[in-house]
Structure formats: C-alpha cells, structure tokens
C-alpha cells in the first residue's frame, strides 16, 4: 500500500512537472515574449531543409556569429524607413529568438525551429515584393559586418529566396 501511494505520488509529481514544463516552453507563449496564437510545431515549418556542408555554418561563426548577424539585421530592419513599419507592430524578443532558430536550422547548425511556417508567420503583415529585397539587403550588410564571405552568404540566401512566395502577401 505504501508503495502504491508512493508510486501514485511520484506519478502525480511527474505529470505536474511535465505540465509545468509544457506550460513554460509553449513556443507561442514564451516568458518575456509577445504571445501569438497556438500552432503546431513541426520541422516542416522551416520551409526548407538544412544545408549539409558544415563549412557554411563555420563561415557564419556558429551560433555566436549568427546571433550577432540577427541582432544587426533587426537593429537595421526596425530602423529602416521602408520595412521598419512592418516590424514595429511586433515585439523584438520573439522575432529575434525564432530568427536565430530558423537561420541556425537552415545553416545546418543543428538547432530546432519552433516557430510558425513562413505563410502563417507573415500573414497580414502587408509584405510587398520589394520589402523582401530590402530585408535581404539588410541581411547582406549584417553578414558583411560579421565577415561572412559573399559566396557563403549566397549559399544561405539561395535557401531563403524561395520563401518569398510565402512571405509576400498577395
């Protein structure tokens, strides 16, 4: 009986802990981040598979380098006359985390992407075709600043380019 009670208690604790854990890590409602509507997390949300050549992620100086590139990109994007107004309604922490995850996944850095798919993430933002070009130009400047060689930048951009179809609002 004692054993059974103990077992039940342990089980209950486990279930509670699991529930609490799930509560904390729901990727649409992370602590300190703007909440978004719940969605299903899936690898396919990244919109493309990862680059398999490890030289590319090395050229981006790994996760630290990528974090600097994303930070510079967002600094410039929020301040940009053309695409700043698209970013400003959204708080930066969630965008910064999901961008880091997304880029790290695509670059073959071994990260999981917990964000929404490209169409859902950019729905109703009013992104025009030229805005995509403007963001790419900002990203290029950020990659230049990090010292990523142009050819390596292009290998990354080749993965992102087709996402224009889902990012631009028709």
């Amino acid at each position, binding site marked *: 009986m004692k054993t059974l009670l103990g077992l039940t208690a342990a089980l209950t604790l486990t279930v509670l802990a699991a529930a609490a854990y799930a509560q904390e890590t729901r990727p649409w409602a992370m602590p300190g981040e703007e909440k978004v509507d719940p969605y299903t997390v899936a690898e396919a949300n990244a919109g493309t598979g990862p680059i398999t050549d490890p030289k590319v992620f090395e050229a981006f100086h790994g996760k630290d380098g990528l974090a600097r590139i994303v930070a510079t990109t967002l600094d410039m994007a929020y301040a940009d006359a053309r695409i700043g107004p698209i970013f400003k309604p959204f708080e930066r922490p969630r965008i910064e985390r999901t961008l880091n995850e997304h880029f790290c996944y695509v670059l073959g850095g071994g990260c999981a992407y917990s964000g929404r798919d490209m169409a859902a993430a950019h729905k109703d933002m009013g992104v025009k075709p*030229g805005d995509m*070009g403007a963001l790419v130009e900002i990203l290029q400047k950020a990659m230049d600043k990090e010292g990523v060689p142009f050819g390596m930048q*292009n290998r990354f951009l080749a993965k992102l*380019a087709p996402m224009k179809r889902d990012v631009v609002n028709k």
Partner: protein
Amino acid sequence: MIKIMAGAALALGLTAGAAGAQNLETGGKLLLTGGVSSIEGSGGGGLATWATTTGYGSEEGVGGNAHATFVSLPDFEFRTYGVAVGLFDRVELSYARQEFDTGSTGGKLGLGDGFTFSQDVVGLKVVVLGDAVYDQDRWYPQVAVGAQYKMNDQGAIIGAVGGRDDQGVDYYVAATKLLLDRSLVVSGAVRLTRANQTGLLGFGGPNEDGYSPQFEGSVAWLAGRRLAFGAEYRSKPENLGFAKEDDWADVFVAYAFNKNLSVTAAYVDLGDIATVKDQRGVYISLQAGF
C-alpha cells in the same frame, strides 16, 4: 463653373495619381539583378539579351534606365544610346539608337570619311515563366519572349551591298537563371533574325533572305554584391555576299556603384566587319536609372 469642375476633376485625378504612385514600388530588386543594357537597348548582358526586365522595379513596381555604350574598334567606332523601362517585372519596353561610325575607314571603303550607319531599335520583352532570382528551389529558368523592330537609315548603301531590306524584326526567346548557391548567372537566348551585323548592314541578302535561328548567351560570376565578371557569345547569320560576318564574343566586368549607376567594361571581338578584318576592341557602357 465648368472651369471649377475641371479643376476639381484635375485635382482628384492628381491625388488619385499620387496615391497610385505610392502603391508603385521602386528599387525592390537586388543590386545588379536587373542586368545591364545590351547593345540593342534591352536588359541583359552587353551583346546578349536576358530574360530579366531592366531596372530595379519589383512585381509591384517599375524601373527604368538610360544607357550610353561606346565600342572602340581598330577601324570603326560603334555607339549606342537608349532608354528602357521595366513594368511590374513582367514587361520591358526599350529604345536604342545605334551608330556605326566608319571614321576614316569609310573613305577607304568608298563611303566617305565619317560615314555612319544608324538604326533605331524598338524592343518589347514579356516574361512568361519563372523568377531568375527567387526560384532557387526550381530547376527552370526565367523565360521571356521578345521582339525588336529595327529601322536602318542607310537603305541605299544597304541595297548596294546586297542587303534586301533596311528594316526588320528580330524575335527571341531568352532563358536566364541565377544559380545563387554558386554565385553564377547563366543566360541563353535563341534569336530568329534576318539582320546583317545586327541590322547595321540591313536585313537579308544573296546568301540567305529568310530568318535563321541564332544563339546568344552569357555566363557571369558574381564576385560581390556590386561586381560581376563574365563572358558572352553571340552567333550571327551570313546573309551578305560581299563580306564575311563573324560571331561575336566578349569578356566583361560590371560594377554597380548603387542602384542608380553602373558601368560595364569589356573586351569585345566583333571579327570581320564589312571586309575589314579583326575588329577587336574595348567596350564601355554607362547605365543610369532606378
């Protein structure tokens, strides 16, 4: 009263026009992805036409530019000037004025010193498939079809050397693909043409009066955002009997200072022209636009 209404209508029209203009994007394309201005005025490489529309307008925008090109050859000088607009990354309209100045060679050929063949080229290009830049997950290129109407102003001389017409229309299909993960642009076009030396010596001749398919292509390596190196080839018919006509080739470097100004320099081999051999020289082209 009528005046006031007309004024109000005009004001409304202007406002609507301004609102419309606000919805038109400019500069939405990436640096150099509009290509440069080809000798016939359409967007492309220098000698070869591409499937891309000129300028930096996106699918919801417009772009345009003006260009001036000088080709200094041992015995001739070739100049073109023109303007082109790209509409919604779909349609391109272009105009170029070509001048082939025989200089002192004109005297030796019996044409007179400084004799100049000129032609006007009006071009239309329509993109029918694909996106050369963004479709990086698809194998097929951007494809465009186009026509160039060429009017030469030296009909009498053209007739004297055996050319059948002083005007003609070229039709082409162009395919262009940016292989972004390799930083390469590859482009090829098939041109149906009757033109002798692109029309500078008229159209058709004793050897062949009808259309023949010719190839023109470019390969360019993007060394950086602003800088591209490449090579081109353009095959040509041999319709005239009095002189041999060679295929053209060049190696080039293109540099974009920004989206408003770019320069292309090339070494071109135009072969034999009007019995004068080995016309190789330097090609410089300036393009200004948006």
